[in-house]
């Protein structure tokens, strides 16, 4: 009952004309960002963040949240029409979505994406509503050892669930922690790693790093392969589903939504949920041979998984103050900049913010459904904007965003440095997400570790003997061991 009352209060906030306008702006801009290859939600949110400093935090987050889930909605459009995923989470949609488009069924593919995303978004929001508050209440029992363990668990999951070199991912995470050490230390207030630079005494601003690694590096990477494809022409009247399409896709939508939510609560890339949903649908299908040749289930499941995964990422962010991805790390940082304290107390100290944001997701979800189907021709037209005119504007807007943090060109020099670093990291397959997450979690991890050691006279065994932190540490151990065992098992089986 109290959840419903809180949700009603949230709707009263989300439905004010100002917040409706920000929600509309966020979802629309998010869809455009999703449609445009070379501009992801992480870059878009970091670029726009300085503009929100003068805004009310609720309005700001309604808009930023809208950009996040709107971008997932928009990413599928280019995946279907151009075989060019706007976001990495839309890669799976190209498998069957583009095939459907080639068979003249682009409208059905776009419609199933929009409807699946709506269904998944709604299920995700209900899940967030049901899981978030009890988790926050549970987290009120957390002390420094638990916070240390939960932060390390998040980071370990991100490193070990994601594919690629674990060594490189670990090096990236450690670099993030080291960057977080720059400036005054949180215990004694000593200057660390400032090299005599006054601009580094307050540490490196997270936004500068994020804009460098995402926006600036993204431009440099995109300049390597700025190829354009010709969009297909889609007639507005054809964007709907037949009865057979409905029958084939309702179950994958529901399964994808639940799977996406379950995986989204855990840290890791959003692509896992979409690939897992695709694999599930293929396995459950009576005609798995149709997958990759235009099976609507291959679009309905992953698109639903993608959207509920996005909403589920707000669960650890709001309830624990622990981000599980690039974008939620940026949102966490944005909350701090707006004077909010992310974590379990957020539900107690700022219920209007939390419930206003959750209610706005319902509203944004409806807006996306109403807007996206009729506006598909406009969104496809946006993809025709030459990249040669887009990236100079992105660079200048990024510069403005960084400059306005402290009205200092020094920050812009740092931006260039991190942009170049991000470019080389991506060229040599060093994942950027662990660095970003470690940079955000660095102060929390250091403070928690210091407090744990200080309270227990330097004894770290408390991390393993307290029930909650012990369980979390055991989960870290499992994350480290299980994938290795599974790999060995597979090797033995194939041999």
């Amino acid at each position, binding site marked *: 009952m109290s959840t419903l009352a809180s949700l009603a209060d949230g709707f009263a906030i989300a439905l004010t004309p100002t917040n409706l306008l920000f929600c509309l702006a966020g979802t629309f801009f998010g869809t455009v960002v999703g449609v445009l290859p070379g501009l992801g939600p992480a870059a878009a949110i970091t670029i726009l963040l300085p503009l929100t400093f003068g805004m009310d935090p609720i309005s700001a987050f309604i808009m930023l949240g809208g950009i996040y889930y709107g971008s997932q909605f928009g990413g599928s459009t280019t995946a279907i029409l151009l075989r060019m995923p706007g976001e990495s989470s839309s890669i799976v949609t190209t498998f069957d979505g583009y095939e459907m488009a080639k068979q003249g069924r682009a409208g059905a593919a776009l419609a199933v994406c929009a409807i699946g995303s709506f269904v998944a978004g709604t299920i995700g929001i209900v899940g967030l509503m049901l899981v978030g508050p009890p988790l926050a209440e549970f987290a009120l029992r957390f002390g420094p050892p638990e916070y240390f363990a939960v932060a390390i668990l998040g980071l370990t999951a991100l490193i070990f669930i994601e594919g690629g070199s674990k060594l490189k991912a670990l090096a990236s995470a450690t670099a993030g922690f080291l960057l977080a050490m720059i400036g005054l230390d949180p215990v004694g207030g000593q200057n660390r790693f400032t090299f005599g630079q006054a601009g580094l005494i307050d540490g490196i601003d997270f936004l500068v790093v994020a804009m460098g690694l995402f926006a600036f590096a993204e431009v440099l990477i995109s300049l390597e392969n700025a190829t354009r494809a010709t969009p297909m022409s889609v007639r507005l009247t054809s964007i709907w589903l037949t009865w057979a399409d409905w029958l084939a896709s309702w179950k994958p939508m529901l399964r994808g939504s639940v799977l996406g939510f379950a995986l989204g609560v855990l840290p890791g890339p959003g692509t896992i949920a979409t690939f897992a949903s695709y694999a599930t649908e293929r396995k459950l299908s009576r005609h798995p041979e149709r997958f990759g040749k235009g099976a609507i289930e291959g679009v309905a499941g992953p698109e639903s998984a993608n959207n509920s995964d996005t909403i589920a990422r707000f669960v650890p962010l709001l309830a624990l103050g622990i981000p599980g991805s690039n974008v939620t790390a940026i949102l966490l940082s944005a909350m701090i900049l707006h004077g909010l304290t992310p974590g379990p107390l957020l539900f107690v100290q700022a219920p209007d913010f939390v419930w206003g944001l959750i209610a706005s997701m319902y509203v944004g979800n409806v807006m996306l459904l109403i807007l996206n189907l009729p506006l598909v021709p406009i969104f496809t037209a946006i993809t025709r904007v030459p990249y040669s005119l887009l990236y100079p504007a992105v660079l200048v807007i990024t510069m403005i965003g960084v400059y*306005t943090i402290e009205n200092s060109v020094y920050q812009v020099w740092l931006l260039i440095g991190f942009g170049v670093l991000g470019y080389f990291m991506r060229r040599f397959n060093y994942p950027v997400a662990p660095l970003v997450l470690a940079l955000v979690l660095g102060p929390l991890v250091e403070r928690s570790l210091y407090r744990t050691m200080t309270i227990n006279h330097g004894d770290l065994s408390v991390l393993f003997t307290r029930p909650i932190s012990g369980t979390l540490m055991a989960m870290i151990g499992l994350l480290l061991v299980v994938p290795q065992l599974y790999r060995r098992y597979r090797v033995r089986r194939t041999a």
Partner: protein
Amino acid sequence: MRARRSELAMALLVLGVGALSFYGSLHHRYYTEFGPDAGFFPFWLGLVQTVLGAALVYAVWAGRTPLAESRPIGWRGQVLVAGLFVAYVASLETVGFALATFVFLAMVVGWVERRSWLEAAAYGAGLTACLVWLFQGAFRLPLPVGLLKF
């Protein structure tokens, strides 16, 4: 060979950052009678990064890691754009936001993207005017002002 050299340079960078951080942490007190001090966490992080860097160097050297695809850096693309951006940032506080932005945008579109100079100038002027109006006018954000006072 080229891919291996580049990958090795990146691994050496990780190793160097680790070693430097480890060395830097030694300038801070490690522990006090109450608990860890400013040097504690950086000490371990520096050590871990050094070990990881050494492992990466070994993995590349021994051919135990898949090498990233070797692609030459596009001089006309990345280097020129990055160079123009550096020049743009360096000139911001001298010539001011409006003029520096106009020149940067026109140079990128006209020189790097090889569009007509008229088109480049129109793009530069139009976008600069929009950005000044939006950020300085509507959002009241202070932008760099140069000797020309705009």
